[in-house]
C-alpha cells in the first residue's frame, strides 16, 4: 500500500502520514514514511509518503501510489501517477474544481476542514482524511486505528487531544458512503 498525503506546509500532511505509518506498524506491517518539503515552514509544497506491506519495502518515495490525499489544488498533480483504480481523496474546502478523471480512478470528495470544524477540532483536517481512507479502502480495522491514533498523541505528550482527534477520525470515516 502506497499513500501520498499532499498539501501546503502547515496543513499537517507530514503528520497525517506519520499517524498512518503508526497505524500500519501497530497492525504488524513493515512500514516506511518519508517527508518532502521545501525550506519554508508554512506555505510551499509539502508531502509525505507512507508505504506498508507484509513483505520487503523498496524505496521510500512514491512511484505508482494506491491512494493520494490532495489537501489543496496544486496537490492534484499527484493524481496523475495513481494506479488505475486508485483512490483520490480531495479536500473540497481548499480545492475549487475537481477534474474529471473519466473513471480511471475513484474520487472521493471530503470537506476536511468543515468536518474538522463540525467536531470542534479545526486543526484536525488532516486526521479527517485518514478516516476517509480507512472507510474507502478498509486498510485498517477502525477500532485498532483509534487506539493507534490515541497512542500517537499520548506518546507525543498530547494525550489531552485524544478525544477530539478521534472525533475527527470518525467524522472522516463516516462521511464516506
Amino acid at each position: 500500500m502506497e499513500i501520498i498525503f499532499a498539501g501546503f506546509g502547515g496543513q499537517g500532511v507530514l503528520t497525517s502520514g506519520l499517524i498512518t505509518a503508526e497505524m500500519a506498524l501497530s497492525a504488524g506491517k513493515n512500514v516506511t514514511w518519508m517527508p518532502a518539503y521545501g525550506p519554508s515552514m508554512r506555505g510551499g509544497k509539502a508531502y509525505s509518503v507512507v508505504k506498508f506491506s507484509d513483505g520487503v519495502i523498496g524505496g521510500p518515495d512514491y512511484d505508482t501510489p494506491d491512494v493520494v490525499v490532495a489537501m489543496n489544488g496544486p496537490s492534484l498533480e499527484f493524481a496523475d501517477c495513481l494506479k488505475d483504480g486508485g483512490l483520490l481523496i480531495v479536500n473540497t474546502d481548499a480545492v475549487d474544481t475537481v477534474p474529471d478523471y473519466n473513471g480511471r480512478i475513484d474520487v472521493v470528495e471530503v470537506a476536511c476542514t468543515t468536518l474538522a470544524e463540525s467536531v470542534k477540532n479545526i486543526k484536525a483536517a488532516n486526521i479527517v482524511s485518514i478516516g476517509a481512507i480507512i472507510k474507502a479502502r478498509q486498510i485498517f480495522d477502525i477500532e485498532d486505528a483509534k487506539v493507534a491514533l490515541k497512542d500517537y498523541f499520548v506518546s507525543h505528550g498530547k494525550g489531552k487531544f485524544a478525544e477530539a482527534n478521534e472525533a475527527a477520525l470518525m467524522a472522516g470515516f463516516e462521511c464516506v458512503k
Partner: protein
Amino acid sequence: MKELWKGNHAIAEAAMRAGCMFYAGYPITPQTEVGEYLSGRMPELGRKFIQAENEMAACYMLQGAGSTGMRCMTSSSGPGFALKQEAIGYLCSNWIPTVFVNVIRWGPGLGSLDSAQTDYFQATRGGGNGDYRLPVFAPNSIQETIDLMYEAWDMAEKYRNPVMILSEAALGQMMEAVEFPEFKEGPKQSEMDWVWDGVGDRHSFNHGTPLYVDKPRRVREKIETMQENEQRWESYLVEDADYVCVAYGLPSRTTREAVDQLRAEGIKVGLIRPIMVWPFPFKAFAEIKKDVKGIISIETTDAGQVVEDVALATKKMVDGNVPVYGLYTAQKVVRPSEAVAFIKRVIAGEEKEVF
C-alpha cells in the same frame, strides 16, 4: 518491540549504544537531527557533546578525544563534510580511530537538500591530501544503519583508522520500524597499546615502533589487509543473471524492485548491493556467470561515480570484455519503473556502454 525511528535519530542513538563517549559537530541540513538528538541524550548519559565553532574544529576535537582511546564521532553533510577532509587526512596519518557520518546531500558547493550519492568519490577516494583509505559503510535501511553504527568503532579500533558511515538525505529523513541493540562499552584505555593517557610510560602516543618508521609499507599493508578482509555485499539473483545491476544505499532498494518486476516478465536480472563501498566488493563479481551480457551501475549521481568501481571490478573478476552501463538519476532516487525502462533499453541495444 519495534518502533518508528527517523534515520538521523537512529544514527545518534546507535552511536550511544555502541559506546560513543564524545561528539563534536556543526549543524547542517539534512543531518542536523543527529547533533540535535545527541545534545540532549549525551548529557543524560554523562557523555560529552560539543557544538563546535565549525566543522574543522570538530574534527580536531576528535583528534584529541580519539588519541586517548575514547570512542568519538562527528557528522555533517554537503559543504560541511567537505570541510572535514583535511582533518580526515591527519587522523589517517596519525592512525586515530574515529567515526565520521556523512548524510549526503546533492552537490557540489551549496548544492541542494535533495538526496544523492554525489560524495561517493570523496568517501572512497578521499578528499584530503595523501594516500589513505577509509572503510566506508553504506546502509540501505534504518535498521542496517543502526547495525553498522554499532560495529563502526570496532572496525576503527581494529585498524586504527577512521571509518565512515555513508547515509543519504532521504535515509536520514525517513522513518522505519527498528530495534536497537543493548548498550556496550569500548575497550578500556589500559587495554590499548597505543593511547595517550599520561600515565607511567603511557604518557606518549604510540608505544612500540613510532608511526614514521617504514610508514609507506605499513600503510600499504594496512590498506591491503582491509581490502582483503572487509569486502561486504548482498547478492540477489546474481548466479543465473544475464544482466547484473550494482547499486548501494536507497537506489539498491528500488533497483531490487525493478529486478523483481523484470524477473516476473522472465528477464534474468540480478543485483549486487555493496554494503561497504570501500573496500569495494570485488569478490561479489566472482559469482557472475561467464556469458553475462552486461553490468549496470544505478546511482544517484550526475555523471557517474560508482560506475568506475563497477568497471574495475568487472575487468578484474569477469572474463571477456563485458560492457558496463550507467544510470545516473542525480537528485532523485531511481524509481523502479525508471530502472526497468533503462534495463530494457540496455537489452534492446539502445544504451551506449560507459566502459
